[in-house]
């Protein structure tokens, strides 16, 4: 049985390497959309994938650490409101952890639907509510600017998590042995 908030050694290692991967993708692997300063961040696809595999704690920390590192690398300082929102969005996606068994080779259309519902709700909460509100509280940014930015971020991040996350989960489930695929040989 999977336990939602259990922290095993594997969770810790997955968090560490996942965050490194997240930071790497966040900086180097993005698809420009044609609108300046907005791009599809493949990192959120990876974050959602790891959140489903390793649970909400790993997911949340991966996005939090990964985003903070890539911010620090690129800007020398950390934009806390968005880093926190990133962490929360992937934590929320991770709540689907106990319901999807991709590690046992099971990932059907029902799971696709379930994953995407969680993912969309998580992105809406994080980018349309938390990020702009924190921007206003911490940095006193004008409200209409941050809500516009939040809505744009929500759309692209939901696309990234949805499309890339789903594809990764499909690929992963395919290479995992199915539960009960081995049977005892008759003597």
């Amino acid at each position, binding site marked *: 049985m999977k336990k939602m908030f259990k922290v095993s050694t594997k969770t810790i290692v997955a968090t560490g390497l996942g965050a490194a*991967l997240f930071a790497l993708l966040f900086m180097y692997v993005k*698809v420009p959309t044609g609108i300046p300063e907005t791009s599809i961040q493949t990192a959120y696809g990876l974050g959602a994938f790891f959140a489903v595999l390793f649970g909400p704690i790993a997911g949340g920390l991966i996005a939090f650490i990964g985003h903070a590192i890539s911010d*620090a690398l690129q*800007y020398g300082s950390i934009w806390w409101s968005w880093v926190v929102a990133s962490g929360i969005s992937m934590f929320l996606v991770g709540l689907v952890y106990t319901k999807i068994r991709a590690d046992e080779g099971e990932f059907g259309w029902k799971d696709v639907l379930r994953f995407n519902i969680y993912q969309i709700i998580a992105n809406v909460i994080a980018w349309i509510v938390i990020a702009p509100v924190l921007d206003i509280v911490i*940095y*006193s940014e*004008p409200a209409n600017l941050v809500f516009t930015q939040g809505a744009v971020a929500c759309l692209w991040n939901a696309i990234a998590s949805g499309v890339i996350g789903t*594809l990764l989960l499909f690929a992963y489930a395919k290479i995992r042995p199915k539960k009960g695929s081995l049977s005892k040989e008759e003597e």
Partner: protein
Amino acid sequence: MKAKLFDYVERHNAIYNLSGVTKLLCFLLLTAAVMFSYDIRAIVVIMVLSLVFLAMSQIQFRQIKLMLLYVLLFLVLNFILTFVFSPSYGTQIYGTEHVLFRIFGRYVVTSEQMLYQVTKTLKYASVVPLGIIFFLSTNPSELASSINRAGVSYKAAFAFSLTLRYFPDLIRDYQDISAAQQCRGLDLSKKEKLGKRLKNILNITIPLIFSTLERIETISNTMDLRGFGKEKKRTWYAAKPLKRNDVFAISLALLLFLGTIALSVFVNHGKFWNPFV
């Protein structure tokens, strides 16, 4: 494409010799102070001090050139966007209106708006030297122990130290895979259509992600075999004991933090300093 962060070069001066905990606490305290306050006087004081610290740390300009360029670009963009979206936000905050000149329609440049936007820009700019000092002058192995000593559970601190340990490795893997796929004719440039490009990018990231998954398996088994996580506490090889300079630095940061808060609460009666009334 090179990771410049934690491009740690051992040096010996007042800043480098501080313990990692000290630098972390000072970074957090001063960032919090600047984040909280909208008083340009407090922000300028912290900015000047952090530039002095940057000079003291002897970090070379070429190490941070690219980063500064990004910051500048971001600040300029934010400055323009803020004005485009809310040209009268300053007037709304300070409650008065001193018109400097008109552009057209609702785009009127007021001293209030300028004060708000300049303060905001400085607010973001002033923490950059602090971040640079913190990330470039701290030994990465020591960083995890500092985070642990600052009160974060050692498991989370260990995850962070694993991130730093494997970041360069993953970058190398990514470059290898990307070069190999491009040799086979995978186009990642703008010449390819968006959908095709997304697919090509996936062809690089999938091997990277799945090899990382295997690595996770190996590392976590190794750690389990060595008994990781059995005890409630652990010691760190790279921890530095606190010295007199550390106590001094933390006190200074604490003083600046409390000073900024006091300025807002007792003098300004709010986040904003209002010279217009």
